[in-house]
């Protein structure tokens, strides 16, 4: 498989940002996936030569700016989630799809959990169960990314 072009990576990031900026209505906000997180995680695992933790962090910063939340919150959680993905990157690409889904769900869950923790520190109230719903839509978006840009590349057998 050919290496992904840098422009492809940047383009998907831009598209993710536009979807992030879309004026979501009430129900939309509840089920909206974290577009930038999914896209960045995918590239982090698929194309680590383009996307590193710095890029993931930057994407988090963009989310912070677009939501108007405390600057650095999403950036921090994105960076930590990205790191958790990256340290297993060598093994993740060898997983079968179900194992991979589980791990990816874990990563999305970690990100939402971290945001929740930060928000609770800042004095927000505990949200209801619908807060966990975007993990599902995240997974759907992940599957879309896999369909469009291919399964995570396994190393060739030498």
């Amino acid at each position, binding site marked *: 498989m050919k290496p992904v072009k840098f422009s492809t990576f940047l383009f998907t990031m831009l598209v993710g*940002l536009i979807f992030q900026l879309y004026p979501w209505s009430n129900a939309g906000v509840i089920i909206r996936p974290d577009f930038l997180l999914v896209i960045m995680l995918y590239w982090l695992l698929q194309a680590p030569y383009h996307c590193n933790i710095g890029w993931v962090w930057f994407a988090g910063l963009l989310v912070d700016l677009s939501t108007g939340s405390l600057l650095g*919150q999403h950036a921090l959680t994105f960076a930590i989630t990205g790191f958790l993905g990256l340290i297993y990157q060598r093994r993740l690409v060898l997983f079968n799809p179900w194992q991979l889904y589980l791990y990816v769900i874990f990563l999305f869950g970690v990100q939402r959990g971290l945001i929740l923790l930060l928000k609770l520190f800042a004095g927000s109230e505990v949200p209801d169960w619908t807060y966990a719903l975007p993990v599902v839509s995240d997974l759907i978006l992940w599957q879309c990314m896999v369909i469009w840009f291919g399964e995570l590349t396994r190393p060739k057998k030498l």
Partner: protein
Amino acid sequence: MLKGIHQQLDPQESPAFFIQGPKPFSRLMFFCTLSLVMMAVDARFDYLSQVRQWFNTALHPLEVLASAPNEWGRNINTYFTSHNQLIQDNFKLKQQALIDNAALQRLATVDAENAHLRTLLAGDAPIIPQATLGEVLHMGRDPFSNIITLNRGSRHHITAGQAVVDEQGVIGQITRVYTFTSEVTLITDKKLSIPIQIERNQLRAIAFGEGKRNTLDIPYLPTSVDIKVGDKLVTSGIDGVYPAGLAVAVVTQIKQSQDSPFAKIISRPIAGVNNHKHVLILKIPDTPAATPSTENKQVLPRNNAQHLDQSVVEVLQKNNAAVDPHPATETPVLDAPSTEPGVAATPLGTTMTAPDTGTAPIAPEHP
């Protein structure tokens, strides 16, 4: 030999540490520190608001692009609105306009009368708020905060702190202003409190948002307080942000418990906090302390109130003359602020108190 193998490998297949520069962990540590510092700076200081503004202005084209499909959908919808619907709407609006006009005629008279009475009582001029129409862009992207974004920003002379209302009542307050947009924190947000008054008995209190429950809480009122379910809460206007008399909420529930000296009073916002497209952004009323008397005068509606308060001053001067045999010492105090014709509220206030207090300091001068 080894070198040869490396040249054959695809970039993504060579081990991570050859390509990624610094180790992921050191990267993580660097960015974690950076974001923690940013969070601290953003929470405590005001340095980053400018950065935020630049970014937001830069993101504006993307934002417009992102909301374009929505805009098209609405335009198409508008285009296909049936003729019948339009006629019906037009009829309804005409009727409403008629009713409103009749009410407005009465309001003008009452306004003038109110201005008279206020000048007579040496009160402040009534505040007539000016407003800008704004459109809701989206309901906030952060599920944790009750924020809506409007399509009016610093370009349209919006400043943070302005009150936002719809046709039924208060929605919230502008908390962050960007170049083209601004953020409104809803009154149901936990961070926002609003000074209110119970319409029925003018009891003043402060209502706090309760977050996602979409209700307001009025704490610190004793259990014996005179509040009933169904009481309407209006803004009291004592904070200088919200003009007095705007509808805020209706009391829905009063709980009195044995173990607390305070009643738990829950109320529901009147304004359609979550279901409006257009809102009004009110100008912050000038606080009486900050306004010089001349500005106060401009706020007064055009009527004969000025002649009236001139005559009030004359009467007071006569009174002073009667009390004090030597009004010469008194007059500079009286006339200094009132060199312009039409004395407004603040100088009048001093003249009103003059007869009581004026005699005491003057007495030693004229034994």
